[in-house]
């Protein structure tokens, strides 16, 4: 059985090895323009249009009492005005020197009053918008793009959901700590990369770490609780305690900031009619292959059949000679690895690693699992893909971007109203 796991992890690894994109987008590091060295204090900034391209040759003036300083932005868009003393200055951008078709964005105050606070350098940001603000976006194009992005998101959700669903199926536990298993994968990749390990090794170690965490959880916590005959509701509350503890242990070591994994920046590429970032494309491919492998293992191998038997009826499975405990152990290890992989892909999708990134999608994972039917693996897959696509598509149909998760959660509640067992679930599972 372990050989199978090894095969899965090896194929995942192979994929990820190929996946390491060589497009480390190095953003040009801003160099300060030559400033008037006779002054201690500076007012400075960078002028970039809404496509991040630098704006050169724009004149900016700073005035205070009888002092007037002028600067012209350089090739990389930077400008710097040395000023004799701190205080409040009136900064004005000469809009007539702006390049053709570029205007200040709506609501940008010009001229504006700026005040130094404690530092000797004061940066002033001007935002720019296109001359013609209304940019007609092709609806069909947009729909297609979001559909592909949603599929990519849904499949990475499915990685975590399948693990959660397998665990629920075999042990009956609704594991609220699954979000932390997702976070762990991404955090471990970041930690191993920070140790200057090669990218592929970092990913491999993170996946192993995820599997180990799953194993340790089962061995140290859930198996003893099962032996004691602890009820499902107390176990659920224990999992909440575990989630809290692990989340803040991660924050304890990782900190509260958002970090980026290597190769996190990738410019969108055009693939036929769809524009997609290479990372999303890799994510889509990796999760599709991994899920296919899981599906094949579940349907075709002895281990898969044993797992499904345990999920169906543990007592009957035990009676027919299946080692239920070892099946559950393997499910936990696999679940941990899948969650870790999901977390790594989620870190690229967002993009960024934070200590609470897993709990941020935990409810979407639950939504996917519930939609598909608690405890059914293929239901979890279908449910997650629906949730992923739904989350991305709601923005196309006019829902505010910061509400896009609400739609998915709402749909879950509506489905429970009409089909509580979920899409592939069976009636008898509903109490």
């Amino acid at each position, binding site marked *: 059985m372990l050989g199978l796991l090894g095969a899965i992890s090896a194929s995942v690894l192979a994929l990820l090895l190929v996946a390491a994109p060589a497009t480390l987008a190095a953003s040009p590091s801003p160099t300060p323009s030559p400033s008037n060295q006779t002054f201690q204090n500076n007012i400075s900034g960078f002028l970039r249009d809404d496509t991040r391209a630098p704006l050169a040759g724009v004149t900016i003036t700073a005035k205070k009492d009888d002092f007037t300083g002028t600067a012209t932005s350089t090739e990389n868009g930077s400008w710097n005005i040395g000023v004799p003393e701190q205080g409040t200055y009136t900064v004005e951008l000469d809009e007539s020197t702006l390049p053709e078709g570029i205007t200040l964005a709506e609501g940008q105050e010009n001229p504006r009053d700026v005040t130094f606070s404690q530092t000797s350098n004061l940066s002033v940001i001007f935002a720019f918008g296109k001359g013609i603000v209304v940019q007609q976006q092709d609806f069909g194009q947009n729909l297609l793009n979001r559909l592909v992005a949603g599929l990519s998101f849904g499949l990475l959700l499915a990685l975590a959901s399948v693990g959660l669903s397998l665990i629920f199926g075999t042990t009956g536990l*609704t594991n609220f700590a699954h979000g932390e298993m997702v976070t762990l994968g991404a955090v471990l990749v970041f930690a191993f990369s920070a140790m200057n390990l090669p990218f592929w090794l970092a990913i491999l170690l993170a996946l192993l770490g995820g599997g180990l965490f799953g194993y340790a959880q089962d061995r140290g*916590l859930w198996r003893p*609780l099962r032996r004691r005959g*602890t*009820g*499902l*509701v*107390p176990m*659920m*509350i*224990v999992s*909440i*305690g*575990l*989630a*809290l*503890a*692990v*989340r*803040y*242990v991660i*924050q*304890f070591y990782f900190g*509260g900031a958002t970090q980026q994994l290597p190769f996190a920046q990738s410019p969108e590429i055009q693939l036929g009619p769809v524009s997609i970032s290479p990372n999303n494309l890799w994510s889509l491919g990796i999760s599709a292959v991994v899920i296919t492998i899981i599906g094949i293992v579940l349907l075709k191998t002895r281990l898969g059949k044993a797992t499904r038997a345990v999920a169906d009826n543990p007592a009957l499975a035990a009676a027919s000679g299946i080692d239920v405990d070892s099946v559950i152990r393997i499910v936990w290890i696999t679940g941990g690895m899948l969650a870790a992989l999901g977390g790594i892909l989620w870190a690229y999708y967002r993009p960024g690693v934070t200590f609470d990134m897993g*709990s941020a999608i935990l*409810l979407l994972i*639950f*939504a996917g699992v*519930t939609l598909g039917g*608690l405890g059914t693996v293929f239901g979890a897959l279908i449910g997650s893909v629906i949730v992923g696509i739904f989350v991305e598509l709601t923005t196309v149909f006019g829902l*505010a971007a*910061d*509400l896009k*998760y*609400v739609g998915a*959660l*709402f749909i*879950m*509640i*509506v489905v*429970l*109203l009409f089909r*509580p067992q979920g899409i592939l679930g069976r009636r008898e599972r*509903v*109490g």
Partner: protein
Amino acid sequence: MDFGFILASAAGEIFSPTTAAYALAALGLAVHFGYSGLLNFGQAGFMAVGAYGFAISTLTFGVPFFLGLLIAIIASSIFALLLGIPTLRLRADYLAIVTIASAEIVRYIVTTNQLTSVTGSANGLAAFEGGFYSMNPFPEGSYFGMNNRDFFIRIVGWGLVALCCLLVWLLMRSPWGRVLKGIREDENAVRSLGKNVYAYKMQALIIGGVLGALAGMIFTLPRGAVQPANYGTELTFFLYTCLLLGGLGTVLGPVIGAMIFWVVLSLTQGILYGLIESGAVTWLNTVQAGQLRYILVGVALMLLMIFRPQGVFGNKKELAFA
């Protein structure tokens, strides 16, 4: 390290308005989970509905205090109805997932930029407590080392806690409460006696939810601000910790649980900060010390559930689920 100060500030947490709010919300959870067996993981949502219901009706519609209070209560009742209709027929874990999702929906909605003019988005709302403090009967001055505002909010908060405790106690020893406990023990048995289990569950959900909404108001009044970040899922989990500390199927359990929770949090913070300042502990900084406390809460929740699920004062016979 000044132990006197650390102890004094920890003791101060016993009667702080925040503790009162936690006690009220945990009492609501006791009605839900302890007495009715409803696994509500969205108590933070009820608190948010209460706080925002009051703040929005005061700020946007300019209603007087008591009307704002009424609106908050009605809003939380409607929220309970919306939650209960699809889920109360379902199994415990479904209810848990749906309630936690609904609480998050509430938080997402009050955070969205589209409603900034009403909800204040991520910054929240402020300056709605004037109507409350204008009723303050205590003239300015010092009351047991507090100013008149602090004293007033404590009196009101803990008065409300006492009132609600009495109410819950009376309810639970009434025939209505016995049916509720019966539902917790065996739903089908109660149903076979001809009781409408669904209606009883819904009433319990509403009562506990209203207690949560009141708690949300008590929570925001001393701060003078309501912010969506305060109503995340962690809040619900902290409330469960309070409830489990004190005891599930008890009236005073949640109150004492909330007191223990805040005293322990304050003590660990004081001692950790003291140790860091005196240089005795160098392996963590003050930010990490704050996180260490949450780790302790999580571990405490696990250990409580595993080793003493009935809590400090609970009765093991009252634990139908364990």
